[in-house]
């Protein structure tokens, strides 16, 4: 089967709607298909991967820890919009650690988070074969 480039476009905050959770469920399944997978976090989508989420007060499942599993599934390209972060008063330090082990670099642990400018996002987007939006 040919390898295609899949982009998962995440633009909504978690919990207010189900899109963030069900998008993550697709990504975990996608891993089994050995395609080239990227995730983009733009607009309020950046809140999906913010550190310190605690859902005890709203009676909903906190699924934010699941993003940590992505590295084990060889999904390690999480592009986060620099503009979206800064508009929201956020920076890379506010994002939860999401890492992978680089098999090409003696299994060194590296961050899967890449903060990118709009120009970089434009370029990444242009390379995709399939874009799944939620």
């Amino acid at each position, binding site marked *: 089967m040919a390898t295609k480039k899949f982009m998962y476009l995440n633009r909504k*905050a978690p919990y207010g709607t189900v899109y963030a959770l069900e998008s993550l469920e697709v990504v975990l399944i996608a891993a089994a298909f050995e395609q080239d997978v990227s995730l983009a976090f733009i607009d309020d989508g950046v809140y999906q991967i913010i550190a310190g989420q605690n*859902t*005890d007060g709203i009676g909903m499942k906190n699924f*934010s820890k699941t993003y940590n599993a992505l590295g084990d599934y060889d999904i390690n390209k999480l592009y986060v919009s620099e503009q979206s972060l800064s*508009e929201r*008063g956020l920076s890379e330090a506010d994002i939860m650690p999401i890492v992978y082990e680089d098999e090409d670099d003696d299994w060194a642990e590296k961050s899967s988070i890449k903060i990118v400018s709009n120009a970089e996002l434009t370029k990444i987007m242009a390379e995709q074969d399939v874009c799944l939006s939620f």
Partner: protein
Amino acid sequence: MLHTVNKSSFERNSLQSCLDIIDEKSVILLLEDGVICAADNTKSSMLAQLAADGKVFALKGDVEARGISAKLAENIQLVDYSGFVDLVVEHGTAVSWL
């Protein structure tokens, strides 16, 4: 009146629409994704004066869920669901900006 806003001011225009109409006796409760309006960010000025007047509340559970407890703008008052009920009882007609 109690005005509720449940969407982020980055995603939708509902907070602005509420602010265009709200009167001086009213208060605002931010809930669900609306708590993003309570964070200290480039749109905080929209609510700054009302917050300083003690008229802006945010639902604590929603704030914590979105990881922004330590990043709130000044003068935002946190309430739990019990406090939400009190706001409804105290402030008369409830208007939801969906």
